[in-house]
């Protein structure tokens, strides 16, 4: 690798750690060598561009993290894409993965909330819940109103999440609910990969696993 490139990489890492400490971007909890490894991966993924587009990111989500739901994949992309430009920058890529791989409970709560809060107004409303959950149930043709089951489910989940009983779920509600029962973290759709895949990915970063798809 050229020295200039290595230097720019070092520069990037320094910047990122500084930013994450200041809180100007999402927290990044990777060590510098891990960041470097992730950067390489990123460069491989986007090829000539320095940005990762939606479809390549979806590939990663599918193959590496087994998140296969179309809608959720989109939402994850939006949660990663903090500047909303439709592309992932290296920084966004690393900070997003930091939540997957090393995220604290608080990080994850924020991230999940962000995934579920479709319009970004800081609340998860009934409608948003309905939207998230409508593909959850196996449709039974015998039922008169196919959506009735989903509506019931929404009520059930709202009962669990809406701590202050205002008919919608705020970040605070969500946090309180998840802290009382960690299972509620992904109560509106699976948006975090499972532990074994994460461990595999960590090994990939540490170079212990062969890079087959990258």
């Amino acid at each position, binding site marked *: 690798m050229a020295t200039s490139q290595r230097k720019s990489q070092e520069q990037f890492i320094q910047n990122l750690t500084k930013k994450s400490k200041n809180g100007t971007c999402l927290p990044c909890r990777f060590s510098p060598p891990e960041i470097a490894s992730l950067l390489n991966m990123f460069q491989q993924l986007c090829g000539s561009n320095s940005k990762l587009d939606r479809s390549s990111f979806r590939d990663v989500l599918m193959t590496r993290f087994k998140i296969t739901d179309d809608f959720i994949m989109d939402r994850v992309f939006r949660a990663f894409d903090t500047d909303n430009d439709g592309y992932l920058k290296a920084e966004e890529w690393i900070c997003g993965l930091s939540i997957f791989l090393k995220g604290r*409970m608080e990080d994850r709560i924020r991230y999940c909330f962000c995934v579920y809060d479709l319009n970004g107004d800081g609340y998860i409303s009934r409608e948003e819940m309905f939207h998230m959950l409508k593909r*959850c*149930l196996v449709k039974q043709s015998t039922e008169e109103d196919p959506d009735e089951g989903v509506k019931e489910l929404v009520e059930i989940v709202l009962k669990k999440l809406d701590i202050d009983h205002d008919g919608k779920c705020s970040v605070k509600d969500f946090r309180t609910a998840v802290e009382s029962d*960690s299972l509620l973290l992904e109560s509106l759709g699976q948006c975090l990969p*499972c*532990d074994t895949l994460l461990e595999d990915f960590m090994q990939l970063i540490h170079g212990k696993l062969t890079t087959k798809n990258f």
Partner: protein
Amino acid sequence: MGQALQRAAQWTSAKDGCGGKLEFTPINEDLLNSILKFVETVGKSPEESQLVFKNPLRWHTSLNPSQFQGAGFTDSGDDVVSDKKSPKDDQPLFLMHKLAKDTYEISVQTLGYGEQVLRAAGDKKIVELRSCLEANRDPVVFLLGERFATVETDDNSIFRYIEEITKEIEQNAKQSADGSNSAEIEEKKIVLRLRLKLLRLDEQLMNLSIQKMSSEVRLSPPTVDGEVSILQQLSGDDEERCVVEYIDYYGETFVSKNGCRAQPWRQLHGDICYLCVRVHDNDNPLYITANTSGYYLNNGPVNDKANHLDYGRPDSNTYRDLVSLLKSKSAKFSELIDKQEFALKVEQNDKKKIEMSENRDHEESEQKHSNEHHTRNEKDQQMEKDKNQKNRTQNKKKLEPSLKWKALDIEENILQKEQDTSVTKTEKKSKTVQRLKSKTPIDAEDSFSESDTESEEEEEAVERRAEANADLPSEYWQIQKLVKYLKGGNQTATIIALCSLRDFNLALETCQLAIRDVGGLEVLINLLDTEEVKCKIGALKILREISCNSQIRRAIADLGGLQTMVKILRDSNKELKCLAAETIANVAKFRRARRTVRQHGGIKRLVSLLDCAQIRNNKPDSALVTTDKPDTEKDVEVARCGALALWSCSKSKKNKEAMRKAGSIPLLAKLLKSTNEDMLIPVVGTLQECASEPSYRLAIRTEGMIEDLVQNLKSSNQELQMHCASAIFKCAEEKETRDLVRKFGGLDPLVTLLSNVENKELLAAATGAIWKCAISPENVQRFEELKAIDQLVTLLNNQPEEVLVNVVGALGELAKAPPNRMQIRKSGGIPYLVNLLTGTNQALLVNVTRAVGKCAEEPDNMIIIDKLDGVRLLWSLLKNQNTDVQASAAWAICPCIENAKDAGEMVRSFVGGLELIVSLLKSDDKEVLASVCAAIANIAKDEENLAVITDHGVVPMLAKLTNTTDDKLRRHLAEAIARCCNWGNNRTAFGREGAVAPLVKYLKSSDENVHRSTARALYQLSKNPENCITMHEAGVVQPLMKMVGSPDEDLQEAAAGCIGNIRRLALANERAKYA
């Protein structure tokens, strides 16, 4: 090979006009393999492989021409031919001829090509060879010519052939010039060689098949019946002694004239009968066909058709006998049958030993209570009687659990309570017994006499759903809805449903049963089998809660939940492991579940959970956060849950063994060092449960756990203290342990625990520990200093029997030291003790009699005992059915007689007492005999009493016992004989009854005490001349001479006296001779 193929190989009967086929049987497989090997080796040798066959071997092949491409082969139209041609008729040596599309015929003229064909066939070799042999039933004819055809009579073709060759060689020698002739001879030699090789192969094949066939001796109905009836006798529920749980004929009970039980049309297939066998380690019964060819498994009954079997076979294994079939199908069976310790069913009678409070069978004692209660209250009011009636019927039902009884759950509970209250009226103690029983998480009862009681615990799991349907609570419908989402949703819906299910109060039975009744258990258990960690966690959290209910526990076990949870124990997710272990801890409260855990390797995995706390401290990606607990804390939690599960599992004896083998002891020892009470309770609980096994006791001592146990006695948690005390209770059976307890200062906290009058379990454990520790004299001293006696005496009043047994046991041990006897009197314990002699609890009686006996050694105490009529009570206990009580009472009587004033008069005053004690000499129990002999020795001090017991025939009875080898019995027997000599012609009578010669043998014993009493007896007996002669003949003088030199004066004197008597007789004889 011809003979073997014709005789040994199994051909199907000829069908469709074209010769038979080779059957697919093991014998044929083996034959084919041997032939294959032969062709492959011979086909490579240069000469034989080139020998051209007399006629080509032809057969239909499954190969196609493409497999014979390359050098040496050429295509000619549809056929493939070899380049080499036969020298005789110019035919190609190999020909593959197309008969129709995709069907070819191969014809081969040399073994070399044969081998090539087989090589080309690859893994279809056997198929090819099979079709070749099927097409050519006698291949030798084709190979070498008609003259070598297999014939039924003596085959001497080969000799003729040899003669021919030798003749030709001779001829050749005469006309040596002809070269072509010699080539012919050369060829013939090759033919001969090949023929010999083939003959050898034939021989091998025949041998092989004979071996095979001899292993398939045919079965006959009588042999089957014999095997079945033997196994039936060895069958039963007892896992230790019975090789199978159940075995019987399956299907119709009709027996044909020929002894077969199978239906006539099945008999045509050779079936004799069908069996259904249930083995211990498999819940599904095995269905076995007994065929004339052997035993094999069949597919069992066809669903929903009674007595309809699927006669097909799941595998092709056939066994010569039933035992080897079962051995291969059940590991447990083969283990048991190898042990050969099982008893016949007829002989099973359970002898229950009663030694300590622990092995008491609650059930039984309760019943005793109520029975006694009946007799006492006979004159009471009618209402009371009614209640008793109910109790009685209920008790009867308890003895034979039936379906009807099962349905009575609620009612029974009420009855139970009623019984409680009614019993309290007369005997306050038993209420606490009841409470204790229901409260103790670990019933002490199954730790010792497990085989008896284990099956009873929790058998009350009851089905009751139908009657409740009338008004279902609203929770029921809500739960039903949630379970619907569990069933029909994806992961997210499942998680939501799981989370909100937990909002219900799962401790309520209605909710627990509702989950079961709407089919939620199945779903929850199925979820455990999925890959979704979160679903698994959620499901386990619910299962953990609801498994507190015994019906749910059973349902979980029935649905195979334990197997899955055991699997989860190996998961990498710690939270999951914890939950699974905790749920197992809840479910494994009954025997079958514990067995399941063990059989699926759960014990090993649980033990490995204990190890967590140490190893994974520095795992690199510990930052993987699901909850924010630090990693070590989670490890500790895993270990705690593991210990909890092991605690439940350790109630089965085999599990204890399995745990030990899995290396649980050092891990438990490590965890015992923890300071966390939540951790310590399950760990100590497991240890005290396991301490019933000697191997664990040893390990607990040697691994230095006593120190920690003692340390934890000082904890502030009463439950922990209780488990520690009961662990010490069990471990202190051994002297070294007792010393260690003292060394680590454990006696002081034990005595301190005595002040906890409220917690009866703790009290029982602490007093038990004191009892066992007091067996060592050094400990007694320490207890004296701690003034334990006073405290123990106060506990003699108003305590449940669990506590009383141990308190009295402790007092009995402490009273071995004379100052303590006095102390017991001073603190007023004797009246209590004597009062307890009227009890019925046998374990208690054993201890009370011992304690009273020890106290009676002090004359001052004896006065009190006498005044309270304690001796009469002791005497009446000789009538107890329990031999331990009898023996203990008889021992206690000895010091009483010794120390009582006017003992003779007192003994006489017991009507029928002397007759009773003499009749006990007929007992089979060594301890009873020894104690009764000791008592008789004391009774016989009084001449009048001696006269009475002589009248009751004590002399022949004692004489009959003299052949014993038990030193304890010998000692007291000799003592009794010595004392009984002092009346009438008893000495002569002993001689007549043949008691003298065996006594002489006692002198060879290694026990000094035996010598002393024997010498005394011999001295007494030697006063009779006849006895002297017998003694002398038995060689008494030599050992007695040695004993004259003993440091023991008593012995000296008696021995010398005896020799003196013998000598005097000799002198008198001499004098008479010369006079």
